[in-house]
């Protein structure tokens, strides 16, 4: 529901903040593998962190489920019903599935000036983030 959105988004970005907190420590630990298998420590950082990303990326395809109805293996029928009803209410009481991309939707958003004003807040956020560290940030998302 729209009311829960801020908390969910913040969990999402906290993961990014915490990875910032611990990535240095993790890298320092992996760098200690210097010499294992005849490879330098920095190579191991790329191999292990890259491997984790790729595996998780592929796993997303299987574990990131599209609809509550398909989640029967880990949600009870009541929970599925609850999620479906919330979606129904959020869409304003219609179950119309919008699957096709309409050029009109794009136009309506591009001409919505408030989106650009909202974007200013993100611009602040990303510009200000540079003050706290002196290395280029990894791209978000």
């Amino acid at each position, binding site marked *: 529901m729209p009311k829960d959105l801020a908390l969910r988004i913040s969990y999402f970005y906290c993961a990014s903040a915490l990875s910032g907190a611990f990535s240095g420590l993790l890298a320092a630990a992996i760098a200690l593998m210097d010499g294992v298998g005849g490879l330098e420590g920095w190579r191991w950082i790329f191999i292990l962190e890259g491997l984790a990303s790729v595996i998780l990326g592929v796993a997303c395809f299987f574990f990131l489920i599209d609809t509550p109805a398909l989640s029967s293996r880990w949600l009870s029928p009541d929970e599925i019903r609850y999620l479906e009803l919330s979606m129904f209410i959020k869409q304003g009481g219609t179950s119309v599935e919008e699957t096709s991309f309409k050029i009109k939707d794009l136009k309506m958003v591009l001409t919505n000036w408030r989106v650009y004003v909202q974007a200013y*807040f993100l611009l602040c956020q990303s510009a200000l983030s540079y003050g706290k560290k002196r290395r280029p940030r990894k791209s978000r998302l």
Partner: protein
Amino acid sequence: MGFSDTNAQLLSAPPYVAAAISAISFARLSDRFFWRMPFVAIPMIICVVAYSVIISLNGAIAEKRGVAYFAVVLAVIGIYPIQSAAASWNANNIAPSARRAIGIALMNCVGNVGGIIGSFMYLEKEKPKYYTGFGLSLALAGFGFFVALFLEWSYKVGNANKAKVADEARAKYTEEELFDLGDRSPLFKYVL
């Protein structure tokens, strides 16, 4: 900041933890009141205070490392909640879902320009004061506070105008047409 490497590594973790706690607390409050503006505006003010402290150190960061460290923690406490509050404020005010998806992407695209500004504003020749970088941060955040107030006002005016024509619209348009108008429908109420 003049710490040894190991210490620097260890000291870099707590600010992020503070950032995470701050982001979640602000987001919880924002959802509780279902009000987004204050949770953009207040963190902006926190950033203004933090960057004012950093600028007032006049580059004496190693001498006053306690104050500098406190200012950095304060800065991230202000920076991190902005994202979740603004992203959900934007998403809450776009309908239907196909347009919301585009709107979120557009906001991210335009917003990430900040990364370009950020990477160019810390000039090597201004080391260690970085007046341009910290000053611009201060200005961006200060202006952001007023932008949040302006946007709140604009949504309020929008809601008032919609309320005037709501009854008329119900008679004039079919349900499908109203759905198609999305957030521009007179029946759609902006989230403040």
